[in-house]
């Protein structure tokens, strides 16, 4: 199967959004590298000496948290822009002069947003982790004192492989929300950013008004909330043990009352030993039917946006 055209559209999307996908993360990673280095070598207290492996894994976890938050926000703005960006500077007629359908173009934009961009962000998490490894080497005076490269590499791959699976599933789960912003963008361009929130809020308000049950129960709000955070079915039997493990880990993974400078409480080995359990538990307890129905809804949003683009966005 020849997918050259599809790859070209994805590449074009990445080039068009290179600031948020490559330049900004590179600056943030460099800033992280510089700040930690300054703190380590010139700070009055310095980074507390913790076991090297702990420091490496903790840095991975921190960069994961940071970049996942970054990605959630970036993807929102990506979808708010990309479904209408071809219209900028009268560019749509150029794209319409190419032998590729509107549905395929918007489908590829969605694929880029839900699969390719999370992979790129995973790449930045790995780059940040490698940076932290280099800082560790400098601080500990070479890898004879720090963890060996192959140990770091194994840990990096192990963490990233698990994170990859979780990220892909999570962002497929979130696809309806992002394509909702996308379809609004196709119709209303930049107004989609506000409308993505305003429309559900108006619907909730109307529900409250017409149900005569003000501020008690909103089925729409419950549904949206459930769709946002309800990826895992917590009612499945056998979860108690897992939840206890997570609770134990959340205690031991906390970075202390005084913030992330204190890594004493962090136990990397506990996280690594439970990694497969966490991932497997996640996979087996994802609400797959709800995820698939969400993807179907995403498909409908993309189709509506593509038909609008094909029929109504004219010269």
């Amino acid at each position, binding site marked *: 199967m020849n997918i050259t055209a599809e790859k070209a559209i994805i*590449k074009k999307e990445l*080039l068009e959004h290179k600031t948020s996908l490559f330049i900004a993360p590179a600056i943030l990673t460099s800033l992280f590298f510089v700040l930690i280095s300054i703190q380590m070598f010139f700070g009055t207290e310095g980074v507390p000496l913790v076991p090297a492996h702990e420091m490496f894994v903790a840095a991975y976890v921190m960069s994961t948290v940071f970049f996942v938050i970054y990605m959630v926000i970036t993807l929102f703005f990506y979808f708010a822009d990309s479904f209408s960006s071809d219209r900028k500077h009268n*560019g749509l007629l150029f794209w*319409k*002069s190419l032998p590729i359908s509107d549905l*395929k173009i918007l489908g590829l934009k969605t694929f880029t947003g839900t699969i390719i961009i999370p992979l790129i962000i995973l790449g930045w998490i790995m780059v940040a982790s490698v940076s932290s490894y280099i800082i560790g080497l400098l601080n500990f005076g070479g890898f004879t004192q720090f963890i060996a490269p192959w140990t770091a590499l194994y840990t990096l791959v192990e963490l990233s492989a698990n994170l990859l699976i979780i990220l892909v599933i999570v962002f497929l789960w979130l696809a309806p929300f992002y394509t909702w912003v996308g379809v609004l963008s196709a119709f209303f361009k930049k107004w989609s950013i506000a409308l993505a929130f305003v429309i559900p809020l108006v619907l909730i308000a109307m529900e409250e008004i017409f149900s005569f049950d003000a501020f008690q129960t909103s089925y729409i709000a419950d549904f949206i909330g459930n769709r946002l955070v309800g990826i895992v079915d917590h009612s499945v039997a056998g979860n108690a043990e897992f939840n206890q493990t997570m609770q134990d880990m959340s205690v031991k993974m906390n970075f202390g009352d005084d913030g992330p400078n204190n890594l004493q409480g962090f136990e990397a080995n506990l996280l690594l030993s439970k990694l497969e359990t966490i991932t497997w538990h996640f996979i087996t307890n994802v609400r797959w039917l709800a995820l698939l129905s969400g993807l179907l809804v995403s498909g409908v949003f993309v189709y509506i946006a593509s038909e609008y683009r094909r029929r109504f966005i*004219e010269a």
Partner: protein
Amino acid sequence: MESLIKVSNLSKSFKNIQVLKNVSFEIEKGHIYGLIGHNGAGKTTILNCILGLMDYDGEISVLGKSPYQERFKLMQDIAFISDVASLPRFLKVKQLIELMKDIHPKFSEDKINEFLQNSNIKLQAKVKSLSKGMLAQLHLAIVMSIDAKILVLDEPTLGLDIINRKNFFKQLIDDYMHDGRTILVTTHQIDEIEFLLSDIMFVRDGELILNCPMEEVADRYTQLILSPDSLEAAQALKPIYEDKQFGQTIMLFDNVKLDEITKLGTVSTPNISDLFVALMQK
């Protein structure tokens, strides 16, 4: 002769205002058509319907396909430059060429490199940094590098100065006008493209008022610069247009016998812009 485009009874309305009224014509292979009309006459609307960019009433068949339903398939065989279309500004010229090569199966990278070699356009330049003239040149180079069956140009030189307009059409003639190409072009600069057209179509207020080969224009229309005292005799022959220039009366006739008017003054074939002005005011 093979018809590549068949348009019959094409009508189009925008918010109850009818901008096209039962337009019918055919575009034959190997011909170069000029679609001429005043601002708002409906030229771009006709082209947009042919290109499948908007819905319409009536029937259009382009290379045997319905353009509105199968636009993206048709774009394999049609290349077009729209009057307002702009190339993606965030790409470099080289990236744009690579994109075209990957997306368009009939795009030739060798051809465009050859075209651009003779220009000032640098491959590493960003599209947004190019001047208007360079953008038009690049866009033309792109569409000429597509082995398309039909090339559609909608006011391709709009906003360009006379040097860039001349360069644009020179490049079109030098690099594209061979192998029986079929071109449909609209422009306001009628005089600048008159020499390359094989057929001409005039649109007035959404109606096609003239559609004929260029040689037929010479056979059918006659311009007369009147001799003194022949005004009444000339008016009796029902000219389609009458004007006074530098104290002389000029008339245009449709299908009049030459021997009837040669005695009335100096007879010549009108140029297209004179004919256009005449028919637009009819």
